[in-house]
């Protein structure tokens, strides 16, 4: 404590109180409350009528096809956005590390979709994906390629949402990677070059290992983001067609706010939380062994 008298020992806690209260009331207690609700056959309109059912909500979820299906759909989306996004973002960041005239404009262009509202720009992409009049099928048509149903096809809908999501969010990862790349010392890379390493060898021997804290950060943040993604599914596909894009988050919304199955939805929320926490811990553990901390 820097020079404040003893009766002011309480002061630091007072400074933390406004933020702490908001977190407590709207995040921490509700998180505990959702766990509590998940053990009840919850009456949405009259909470007093709710009945304790133990693990029945979890049991019915884990034995239902829709839960496992949504898990697979989420996995598909995560694979489409996270590893693919990581590869694309790192490639773009590497391409933009060489200073060339106009580089700042390219970087700005790549980042700009990230600040746009998902409702607004996903509407733009619904129109681009339109099977009859859309731009993409127009391009396919002019290339004499078969046209696709995109968001209206159970096969292509998820790929469409993935394309939109990559367009929207890739710029953030690119900026993070560029920050990580510029923090790697030039001397080390030069030393590798002087020792006769090719660009490719230099990347795998020097840049990639030193970049690993950044890569881990991007991996965790994009995985959490993808597991939580909701709005683009709401506007572009509404979970369809044939629930081909009903992710865990979308199923949670449907169960809770369309069908008012509050108890099972709360159980699903708890499972979603466990999945996200588990994935994060797993990524940390797996990557830590191969991560060099600078």
């Amino acid at each position: 404590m820097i020079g404040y008298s003893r009766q002011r020992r309480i002061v630091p806690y007072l400074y933390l109180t406004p933020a702490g209260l908001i977190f407590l009331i709207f995040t921490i207690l509700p998180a505990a409350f959702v766990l509590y609700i998940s053990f009840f056959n919850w009456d949405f309109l009259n909470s007093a009528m709710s009945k304790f059912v133990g693990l029945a909500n979890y049991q019915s979820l884990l034995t239902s096809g829709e839960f496992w299906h949504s898990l697979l759909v989420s996995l598909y989306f995560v694979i489409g956005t996270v590893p693919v996004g990581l590869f694309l973002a790192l490639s773009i960041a590497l391409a933009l590390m060489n200073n060339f005239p106009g580089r700042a404009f390219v970087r700005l262009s790549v980042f700009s979709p990230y600040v746009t509202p998902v409702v607004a720009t996903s509407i733009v992409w619904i129109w681009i994906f339109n099977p009859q009049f859309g731009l993409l099928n127009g391009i396919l048509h002019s290339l004499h390629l078969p046209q696709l149903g995109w968001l209206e096809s159970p096969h292509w809908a998820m790929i469409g949402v993935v394309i939109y999501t990559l367009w929207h969010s890739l710029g953030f990862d690119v900026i993070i990677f560029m920050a990580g790349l510029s923090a790697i010392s030039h001397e080390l890379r030069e030393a590798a070059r002087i020792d006769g390493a090719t660009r490719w060898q230099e990347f795998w021997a020097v840049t990639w290992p030193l970049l690993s804290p950044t890569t881990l950060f991007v991996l965790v943040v994009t995985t959490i983001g993808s597991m939580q993604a909701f709005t683009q599914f709401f506007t572009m596909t509404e979970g369809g067609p044939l629930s081909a894009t009903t992710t865990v988050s979308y199923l949670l919304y449907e169960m809770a706010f369309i069908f008012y199955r509050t108890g099972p939805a709360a159980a699903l929320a708890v499972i979603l939380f466990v999945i996200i926490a588990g994935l994060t811990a797993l990524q940390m553990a797996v990557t830590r062994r191969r991560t060099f901390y600078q």
Partner: protein
Amino acid sequence: MSSQPSLLPRPRTLRQENRRRRHWPWWQWLIGAVLVVLFLFPFYWVIVTSLNSPNQVLQFPPLFLPHWQWVNYVQAWTAAPWLRYFANTLFIAGLTTLMVLVTSLLAGFAFGMMEFPAKQVLFAGFLAIMMIPTTVLLIPDYILLRDIHWLNTYWAQIVPFGASVFGIFLLRQFFLSFPREILEAAQLDGASQARFLWQIAMPMAKPALITIALYVFIGSWNAFLWPYIMTSSPSVQPIEVGLATFLGTNGTDWTGLSAAVVFTTLPVMVLFLVAQRQFLAGAYAATGGVKG
């Protein structure tokens, strides 16, 4: 990089090599051009669509140039209470931003400049809050907001977002590197802590505060799921919920829909272009916690 004199001829550095090349390889330009087209074309496309007549939009293959049908904008603008949505959004985003700045400044000051029992535990606890996804909180918070009669109000969209882990983290970093002598000098001059925060620390923290304000403001402007669940009347709803409602009712009117997308997104894009440096700085700052 330092350029100390050396007796041995130094090998050319990467940076010098870059500077030496007066013309850059053609593929560098090509990659840059492809990226710009890929990422900016949707913006061009929505503007073109918003300025063509409904018949022109339904041509295949599509038209690539606008035909200046400004009437689409007039029709879209009069079809929904946009002015109300804009006012609601400004009010919600403005007040949320103000709350976040105050709560972050106070908590960041405590974590960055003061010593007290359980400090590390409390800070770890604050960081752990980021682990709890909003989706998970929708059900319990809906019940909570209903029981305190906050459903369908501005408060339901402001107060729960009045504190930000990102904001606290950023200001803690600022105060950790804050010169202790300035605080001590202020104390010797008899300045209270509150006065120190308000008159000395806050002006110095301006860059961090601006970064936080921009991200909170944009996040609040772009918010959808939470206000969609927690509100039901256009009198308190923000712009993106209004746009989603418009999509629901006018889903086949692509020219009007595109016009609405343009005028609802324009304020965000202008803010982004004006403050691009701070936005990029904020993205860099987000990684502050990973460098171990």
